[in-house]
Structures are given as C-alpha cells and as structure tokens.
C-alpha cells in the first residue's frame, strides 16, 4: 500500500487520491505519512519597545503556492504590521525554519495567511488534496476521527497522532464538532478513518475541574489545553474560505456597520414581545458617524432579519450575535445590508451601506520615547468609543506602552491613559505631541515635565522626573 501511494504521488496530482485510493482498507500509517505534509509550525517575532518576543503556532497548508492558514489567536491584534518580523516555516520533525511571508488576516474567518518560500513549498501538500471527491465531508456523531499534533520547537516539532470520536456537532453559529478527547493541535486538520478532511481544529474549550486543597472548600478551576484541541470547524466551514487571502497584509478593506454591544434576545423575551419563535439581537448603542447611524438605526432596536431572511435560531443564544458580526465581516465596504428591526412595537426597515472600518489602534502612528519611558500613539476612533468620548474630536495622544520602572511609570502613567496636556499646554495632535515630547527627550538638562492624563471619568496631573 505504501509503495503504491508513493508511486502514485509521482504520477498524478495529489488531489486525485484520498478516498478512492484508500476506501477499501484504510491504512493509517500510509494516510499519516501523506497528511503530515499539510501541517507546519510557524514562528515569528514580535518586536516591541523593549523586547523581541518569538511566538510559535501551528498552521495548515491550503494551496499549491505554499499558503498556510493560522488561527486568529496566533497573532496579538494589538500588534502593528511592522512589529511582526521574521516569519519562518518549520516542517514537522525539522529543526531548521525557512523564511516565509505574512499575507495578512482575513476579517471573515479570522485566519492569518502566511506563505512558505519556494524551497519549502515543494515539500508541502495542500490539505485540499484530502478534501474528498465530492462536497465537504460532514462528520457524524460516533464516527472515528484523527488529527495531528506537533511537539515543541526543542523537539523539532515532531508530529504525533491524536485519535478520538465525534461526540457532538453544533452550529455556534459555524458548524463545529466536539470530539470526545483532544484530536489535533489548534489550527491543524482533522481526518476521518479514510483520511478525508472533516475539519480544522480551533481553540480548545475549557474544562472545569474542582481544585481541592487540604484546607478550605473545593474551588472550581477552568483548564484550557493550549496544545491540543477537541473542537473543530467542520470541513464545510473551512474549504469554501481557504481562498480568502487578503489583498493586502493590512487585511483591508474591512466592512463596518457601527453598532456597539449587540445582545441576543432570548426566547422568553421574543414570546413576551409577541415575536414567537423569532430570533433577534438588541442594539445597545449606535456609534457616532457610523454607517448604522447614517442609515437611521437606533439604540434599543432589535434586529430581526437580514436581507429579508429572519435571523437563525441558534443555541446558545449568544451565537446569533456572532452570526450577525460574521455577516458584516464577510462583506466589503460599499455593500448593502437590509436590516429589519423592531423599534418599540413597530417593524422598521433599515438599509445600511457598509462603510470602511475607521483606523484601528494597531494601524495608528506611534513613537517610543526611551528616556521618558513610554510610547505615544495617535488616538483612533475606537479609543473614543471605549472612553465614551465624541469620536469627532481626537486631540491628545494615548500612552500605548509604558516601560516598567521607567520615569513615566514611576510618575503613575499607565497604558491607555489619554494624554491631554504636556507641560500645561493642550496637545493638538500626534505630530505636535511627538515634536514636544521629542524636544523634552532631547533636552538633557530637563529634570522633569508634567502630563495631564484622562483615565476613565477622571483626570490626573502626573509629574515625571527625568533625573
């Protein structure tokens, strides 16, 4: 069997074998040795003000160009693009990483895309080769599944097998299978007994344990396995989207609706409002200047339908919020979205033209002042929203990073403080602030300076001693 497979590989495209070659008597070692070629470990370095932080996560190869997808949690959303450096791909069992390129994050799936270099890609097999000949395979309860895990870097990312049984398949809102035990490392594929792709492992759910000490009561503790997961998105939620490679590493364009705090409406409330079995989401706030505001959406509106289709009934109730968010994320700015909302007792149609997501904190300009011990960042729309400020007037700068033990930290500056004044004079914008902070930093005779910062609903005057 192994011999046949090896011969076949040279002769025909990988996509042709899979179910057909192995349907009769699946030979797991043979399936394994082929499928292990569609997983890699990806390492990159996050360069911060004071350190270089390497991160490793597991990725799955999705096409013949060596494109690899990583889970959304693989990269800190606060990190700016320029902070992410030295992407490297490691083949399972190999200690040497080869350079790779970061392609950006897709808003809809949340996946980060990375591309392996030329020399590596020839050694890889895309996971699509194991998709099976027909529609994506949907796992069923009680079926046996298996997947791949990778040992840590100091063990050369040695691959190992994980096997389990499908225990539950549920829409949350994406169709997700829960296996009885861990079945793959998060980000790596899961296969059925014939070696056909059935899904992609996501972050593991937590398990609650009771921690019992000799004195005192048992304390519930949640444990999350970060190396292996028992939850996976079914293939039908994965395969149609593997081509969503961002046009630009920034991940833009990003569609924007502009609601804050969507909350699910539960069945009891629906019944009380005579909506019977209708699903819905309450809009807590409509953001200033957003497409939702322009379209006339109001706080406390209950969204009932999208483009004429009622929102699906999902369990848990929360899933309807994720559903709505994904409906926005799968679109691009300029797309239209028709919302049917309940306002008081009236049904109202709201036609929204999605906008472009305002600048994100990770995209904002920033500058680190080593001697002062903090990074000033240009304030963005989201800063204003978080602090309940009017997003129109974004004066001042935000303390993005405060060096522990540095002069500013000692004076009481904290990350996310909003600097309003420097030395008693109001800060107009980022350029002006960095000019003034640069002058203070450059003046070796300066022994102190004063910041006025806003934090929550309070402000404080901080005196920073430089000597």
């Amino acid at each position, binding site marked *: 069997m192994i011999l046949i497979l090896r011969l076949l590989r040279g002769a025909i495209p990988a996509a042709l074998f899979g179910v057909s070659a192995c349907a009769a008597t699946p030979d797991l070692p043979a399936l394994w040795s082929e499928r292990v070629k569609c997983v890699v470990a990806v390492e990159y370095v996050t360069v911060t003000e004071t350190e270089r932080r390497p991160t490793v996560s597991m990725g799955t190869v999705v096409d013949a160009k060596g494109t690899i997808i990583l889970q959304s949690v693989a990269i800190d959303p606060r990190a700016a693009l320029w902070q992410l450096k030295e992407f490297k791909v490691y083949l399972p069992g190999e200690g040497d990483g080869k350079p790779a390129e970061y392609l950006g994050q897709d808003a809809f799936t949340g996946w980060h895309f990375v591309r392996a270099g030329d020399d590596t890609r020839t050694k890889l097999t895309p996971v699509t080769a194991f998709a099976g000949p027909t529609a994506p395979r949907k796992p069923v309860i009680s079926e046996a599944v298996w997947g791949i895990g990778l040992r840590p870097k100091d063990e050369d990312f040695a691959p190992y097998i994980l096997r389990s049984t499908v225990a539950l398949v549920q829409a949350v809102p994406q169709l997700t299978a829960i296996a009885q035990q861990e079945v793959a490392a998060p980000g790596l594929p899961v296969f059925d007994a014939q070696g056909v792709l059935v899904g992609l492992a996501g972050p593991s759910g937590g398990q609650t344990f009771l921690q019992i000490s000799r004195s005192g009561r048992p304390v519930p503790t949640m444990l999350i396995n970060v190396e292996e997961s028992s939850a996976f998105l079914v293939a039908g939620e994965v395969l149609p989207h593997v081509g969503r490679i961002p046009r630009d590493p920034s991940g833009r364009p990003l569609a924007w609706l502009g609601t*804050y*705090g969507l*909350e*699910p*409406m*539960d069945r*009891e*409330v629906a*019944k*009380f*409002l005579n909506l019977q079995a209708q699903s819905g989401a*309450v*809009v*807590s*706030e409509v953001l200033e200047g957003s497409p939702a505001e322009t379209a006339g959406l109001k*706080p*406390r509106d*209950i969204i009932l339908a999208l483009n004429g289709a009622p929102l699906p009934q999902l369990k848990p109730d929360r899933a309807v919020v994720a559903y709505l968010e994904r409906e926005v994320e799968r679109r691009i700015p300029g797309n239209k979205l028709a919302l049917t909302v309940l306002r008081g007792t009236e049904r109202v149609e709201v036609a929204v033209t999605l906008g472009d997501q305002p600048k994100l904190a990770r995209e904002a300009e920033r500058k680190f002042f080593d001697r002062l011990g903090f990074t000033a960042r240009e304030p963005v729309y989201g800063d204003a929203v978080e*602090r*309940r400020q009017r997003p129109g007037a974004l004066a001042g700068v935000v303390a993005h990073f405060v060096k522990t033990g540095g002069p500013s930290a000692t004076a009481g500056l904290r990350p996310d403080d909003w600097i*309003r*004044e420097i030395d*008693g*004079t109001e800060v107009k914008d980022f350029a002006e602030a960095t000019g003034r902070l640069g002058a203070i930093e450059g003046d070796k005779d300066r022994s*102190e300076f*004063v910041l*006025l910062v*806003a934090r*929550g*609903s*309070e*402000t*404080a*005057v901080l*005196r920073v001693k430089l000597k």
Partner: protein
Amino acid sequence: MSRGFNRLLESVVSINVRELAFESGARRYTSSLGSGVLMSEDGIVLTNAHVVSRRAVEINVTLSNLERVGARLVGWDHWTDLAVLRLDLEEVKRRGFKLSAARFGESEKLFPGQEVFAVGTPHGLTRTVTRGIVSNTNRYFEDTRGIGGYETGMFNTWLQTDAAINPGNSGGPLVTSDGKVVGISSRGYLGANNLGFAIPASTARVVLERLVQDGVVVRSYVGIVPGALQDLENFYALALNTGVLVSSVDPGSPAAKAGLRPGDILLSIDGARVDGRFPEQLPPIQNLIASRPIGSELRFSVKRAAETREFTVVTERLESRVGEEWALEKWGLSVRRVSRTYARENQLEGNDGAVVIGVQPGFPGDVAGIARGDILLKVNQQAINALDVLKQAHAAYEASPAPTLIETQRNRRVSLLIIKP
C-alpha cells in the same frame, strides 16, 4: 483621675443596633455593636455613622448604670462619620435614670505627645479605658467607600492617637485627662499597632449642632477634585503657599459647566487665597466650598498656563454616591438607585436606573440572568427614574405573578430579560 474624668465615664454608653441589610437579594437583619457619648442631659448621644446608619431598625443604648434604654436616629453624616441619637426620654424619666452629659474640649489646642484616653466598648467589653498620646493632630484620610460604601473624609482631617482603638470603640469619645471630649474614636488600621483615628471635636461640634437642628448636614458641591501641589509650585511659577491643583473636574458638574478644567490651579475663592500644597490642607478647602449655601455664586480665580482667569461657579447640593436601597423579595433582587455620582463614575448616559446589589440564587431574577452589578433601566418598558417604579412593578407581580420585561445594562451592553413566575 480628675473629677471631670469620672463624670465623663458616666456619659459613655454602648450601643446595640439591629439594622436592615439588602445585599443578599432579600431583606435581612444584622446586628452590631459600638460606643457613644451623651452630649446633653436631654438624651442626645453622639456616635459614628458607621455604628448607627439610616438602615437601623432598633437601637438600644446601655447607660453607665448598665441599664438599657431605647433610642432613635436623629441624624446621620457619613462624610464626617458622625451620627446623633436621642434616647427615649419617657423611658428614661419613667425609670428614674439621671443622664450625665459630657463636654467638648478644644481639639484645636491639642499638641502631639499630649496624653489622651479612649473610652468605649471594644469587642463588647463595656467601659474600657485605654491610654495614649496624640500622635498627629491633622491627619489626612479620604475614602470614597469607607462608610458602608459611602464617602468619608473629604471635609475634615483626623486626630491620630496611639491609645488602643479596637472594633467596638467606634463612636466612643477620645478625651483629655480632665474628661473633655476632644474627638470621637472612629477607626484604626487593622494589622498595625496603635494607629487610631478620631474625628476632632471642632468638626463634631458643628456637625452635632446641624444634625440636632436639621437631621442632615447640607453641603454645597461644585465638582472639583483637588490635588496637593506638593512641590509643583515652581513648575507653575506660583507664589509660595498659593493655589490648589484641580486634579479632576466631574463631568456635568457646576465647575465643568463654568469652564474649569483639570490641570487648572485654583488661586482664590471669592478673593480669599487658598493654599493646597499638602494633602492635609485639602479638606478645609473642600469644607470652605461645602459650607456655602446651595446656589451660591463662587468666584474662582484660576491660573491656566500663563494667564489668570475668573470663573463664576454656582454650587449644587452635594449628593452621596449611595442611592436608596430596597429588596424586591419575590424576584430575589436587592437594588440601589443610581446616584448622580455613581452615574458619573460609571459614565452612564443618565441618572435613570437601579444597580443590582444582591441576587438570591434560584429566584426569578437570577433565573432570568440578572447578576450583581447590572443596572436595571426599564421595567415593562417604563423607565426606572425612581425606585417606586420598580416597587410598583414588583408589587403587581406579587399580587398576580406574570412575566415582566426588564431592560438591563451590563458594561454598556443592553439586554432584555424576562422575570417570570
């Protein structure tokens, strides 16, 4: 000891209080114990606000002759941690008790090192006298949640003493060797040795008078949070011993409306120079503003960057951060009205609503998904702009249980929930 001291011992009482507690999602009673001192022959007892609060439902006072007499709350002021009771005079008369009143001494004249005595009921040990000295006459101590969630210490400084002050001493007098009351023992540092604090007689005298007369101390509010300049005066190019830093301005407050900003330096109020170099100088400045009648126009002279400007600030009535409380027992929820201060601290849009302070597990409120800290905004689509709205909806539910629609807010997220039988 002196004759005055012996007479003082006769005026020290212990106080047993039974009070309502709402925190558990139901109406519960708790009991506590403290001390007090008789300040008049007609039965006025001075004690701490954290000994007898407005939730008290039964107050019993044990006199020096070990007999118990009922009492009622006359007034309460958490800002200075003082409360005033009046003994049931008919009972006193009927049982033929003779009341002996203590007298205030001059706390302004105390000096560090002077001998003082604390008298009270530490841990229930009645008429315990401990001895110490005045450790500091002007201690600054502020706490925004110090008295059962209420603010304290913004308008007065404290006497510090090393006379042992233990739980139960609260409300008892701190006296000089001649038996004059120079302070009301209030708090100690737990886990520290002999760091006790008392409200000075100079403050207690004024508050006592107000509480006896009006039942409350009405104060003016402008909404600035002052900060000590410490050695910032060089930075701001100020004359020595001038000015107080405006650390923060409450949004929507009179000061904010008048145009004051954080970082301003307040130089004078109505022409009188203010000096807030050190933290202990801040309470008198706050008190200067607070003691003006509500609606007063105060002229603030303020230094901002290089220029000096004048602002006119119209004072409002000072409010506590803790609103009225109630238990909606059928729902298993206890609630507290959102106060102006609470709304401001939590950046709420308005002052409507009630904060959930307790939930009984398994009761309809809990089952509906309401949690401690949630803000109830509407009930059956009616805005909760007074606790009565909630009380009425609850009473209607009690009379005939039916699904009730509640709009709640948790971290700015609005949810609709149903409370059902």
